């Protein structure tokens, strides 16, 4: 029987929703996240575009939705490689009436199995709390930072002047320009996901306050863009003389670093603004290194992309590695038992890499749970650090260091999206 077919476990039915149940899904999700669903908000119409009911999996108690989860399919950028399909897991809620019955575990197990059966090698999510998803084999793989800076202290070091120009643009125009810039920026940022056309369609639907869009161009070529909002908060009494006017950067995406430099200079120099903030700031931060007085930039890192490896051979074989090496890795996984096994990774330190599954009696150099492999996969975190934290064990001396040197990347991992 297909696992997505109707099935009762402890009296709870698990199945995908049907088209006519999207409203019920929205209501259940809103309640799960602690709010009331507003049918007039436009969310329902928007989500109807985005949600693929075939990739939903809800828990029903006597016909009522009491647990929700669904996935979107993204392409995700990996180090020195091309895009890989990733099941983006979202809308994860369980009704307060049905706590502590293993409903989340059951939904997640089925959803990940479904992704695997579709041939998807990776799953990813953004966590409401960082304590939840490690148990399902997700690893904290790419971080963002909450960034903010007083514009008064935002002078740059002497650096080359970007040759291009910045212009404001319209909602209609940005929907055409931004996806092209975004897709090219993905090439240099492992962890970036390709936004879906349906998401871009809704990109300008921001209210409260309405965003501005700017584009950095050299000649006719758009090499970067930003979306930002301005908040005139007359009550927030900044220095006691002038109120705090805050520029909130939603997106600041560049194909080439000089475009990023130009866009930052622009948003930091907008008149009347006393503070510029960016909630999805990359880690590491280029802006930190642009500033003459870097301590003025407040940077608080947080976990952004939690990654789940569903097919280690495909995932490991599809990225590039910084140095050559051959290594046998035992991946422990009792949540997705098909993952559990020993994998041989070979890389020449340039473009060639291959990974295959070995027999269960094969010797191995490293042993780690699936979550640890996911944490180091994008090259943002060190395997040696995980070893120090007790999350990786070494069978062959020196292989933690070797693998650490292989998995690191010169690229700057980034997610940049919210889902």
């Amino acid at each position, binding site marked *: 029987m297909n696992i997505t077919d109707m099935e009762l476990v402890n009296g709870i039915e698990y199945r995908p929703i049907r088209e006519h149940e999207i409203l019920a899904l929205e209501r259940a999700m809103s309640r799960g996240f602690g709010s009331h669903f507003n049918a007039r908000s436009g969310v329902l119409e928007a989500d109807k575009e985005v949600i693929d009911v075939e990739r939903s999996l809800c828990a029903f108690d006597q016909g009522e939705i009491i647990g929700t989860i669904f996935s979107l399919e993204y392409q995700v950028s990996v180090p020195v490689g091309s895009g890989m399909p990733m099941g983006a897991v979202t809308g994860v809620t369980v009704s307060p009436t049905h706590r502590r019955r293993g409903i989340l575990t059951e939904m997640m197990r089925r959803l990940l199995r479904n992704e695997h059966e579709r041939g998807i090698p990776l799953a990813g999510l953004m966590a409401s709390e960082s304590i939840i998803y490690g148990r399902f084999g997700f690893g904290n793989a790419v971080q963002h930072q909450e960034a903010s800076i007083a514009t008064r202290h935002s002078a740059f070091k002497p650096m080359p002047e970007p040759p291009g120009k910045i212009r404001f643009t319209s909602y209609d125009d940005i929907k055409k320009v931004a996806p092209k810039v975004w897709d090219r920026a993905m090439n240099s940022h492992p962890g970036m996901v390709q936004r879906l056309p349906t998401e871009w369609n809704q990109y300008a639907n921001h209210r409260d306050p309405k965003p501005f869009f700017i584009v950095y161009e050299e000649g006719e070529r758009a090499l970067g863009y930003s979306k930002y909002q301005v908040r005139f908060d007359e009550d927030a009494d900044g220095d006691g003389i002038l109120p705090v006017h805050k520029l909130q950067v939603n997106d600041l995406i560049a194909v080439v670093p000089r475009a990023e*430099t130009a866009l930052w200079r622009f948003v930091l120099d907008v008149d009347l603004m006393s503070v510029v903030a960016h909630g999805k700031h990359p880690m590491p931060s*280029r802006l930190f*290194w642009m500033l003459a007085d870097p*301590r003025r930039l407040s940077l*608080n*890192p947080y976990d952004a992309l939690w990654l789940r490896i569903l097919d280690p051979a495909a995932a490991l074989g599809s990225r590039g590695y*910084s140095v050559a090496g051959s290594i046998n890795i035992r991946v422990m996984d009792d949540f997705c038992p098909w993952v559990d096994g020993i994998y041989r990774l070979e890389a020449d330190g340039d473009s060639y890499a291959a990974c295959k599954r070995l027999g269960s009696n094969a010797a191995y150099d490293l042993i780690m749970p699936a979550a640890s492999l996911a944490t180091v996969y994008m090259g943002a975190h060190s395997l040696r650090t995980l070893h120090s*934290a*007790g999350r990786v064990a070494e069978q062959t001396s020196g292989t933690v260091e070797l693998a650490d040197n292989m998995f690191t990347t010169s*690229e700057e991992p980034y997610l940049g999206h919210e889902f």
Partner: protein
Amino acid sequence: MPRMPLVLAPEILYLIPMEIRPVQEEEFRRWRNAVRASLGDHVSEEDTRFMREHRVELDRLLGCFDGDAIAGSGGADSFDMTLPGGNIVPVAGVAYITTSSTHRRRGIQRRIMRRIHLDARDRGDVAAILWASKSLLYGRYGYGNAMPVHDWEINTDYAQYAHFPKWNGRFIRPDRDEAIPLMTRVYDQARLKRAGMVTRTDKRWIYEIHPIHSKDEFFIVYLEGDEPRAYARYGFKHDTDFAGATNVIEAVSTNDASHAALWRHLLDEDLATTVKAKARPMDDPLYWMLADSRRLKRQLTDGIWLRLLDPAAMIEKRNYAVEGALSIEIRDSESGDSTAFALDGGPDGATCSETSATPDMTMPDWALASAYMGTVSFSMLMNLGFIEVRAKAFEAVRRADAMFRTVPSAWNPHHF
């Protein structure tokens, strides 16, 4: 004809003779008062006497004298610093940099920094390090932001471990005098293995935890058998009678197990609802041990700034994560001179010599200093335009990133 007030252009002010020279014994108190006044403090005679006996090297302290007035100050403490791979080199721990408010904008700081660097080179120091009062100040003298750190704060209700290396030692709570030899032993073991750490002399230990500077300090030492493996110095601030915040002044461990044990202990102290710690390594394993890692609030800040005084020696004395050869041209921020070096190195050592060949990369000294400890990549500095790369040598930048990578990240807990 109206009389014009006498106003001298800044260029002229530079020419007024002010003497920069080492401080004499009998001038020390006055010098110290001038330094602290510039930093907004008054100091007691006792404190000054204690500092003279336990901390400073008089022949490394400079004053800028305008007649009798002390117009500016600067100096260095002598340290040995561990480099990636374990070699230990002499460095100048630059401190006491002030300019009197009466003598601003006359180039005094620039002249003092130059003199400190020349003196340090004469002594054989291969680098200078400092903690900056402001991050704006020292890039112009060739310093790079080489060892950024995180300041931490965590609510102890959410500080359970999910993963950790096992430990089986025990804790003791020594008093101040008992603690010094135990902490010294831990510190010196840790120092040998950790890039960025510097020597702390016996006298400096006494100075560091003397009641003048740390009157409410607690000490905790973790032992395996009788061997001390980790320690923490911390203060406690009561918010109410039965709740408050632990402020970790310094926590040093010698291996993964003692690190896990020490932090478990600090996070489990009765009454502490919050634990704060400043200047922790960016890749500290604690974050990865916590079940709810987002609860550890981390704030990035610049830690130690590094200035290469003898770049060839610094390049040659560190080890590299992987084998490789590179050539790098460095432009000195103070002298304006450019020198190219050829590096051939790996995990077991390196050689470095001046070269006349076209270098793979050209960069200002502060950029190499920033990347030297591996905390920022050459790729990022190149992306931002601070490093110029010879045509077709982009592969060298990737190679440099792999070679200079340093895990665990360089870190220095010693404040000076």
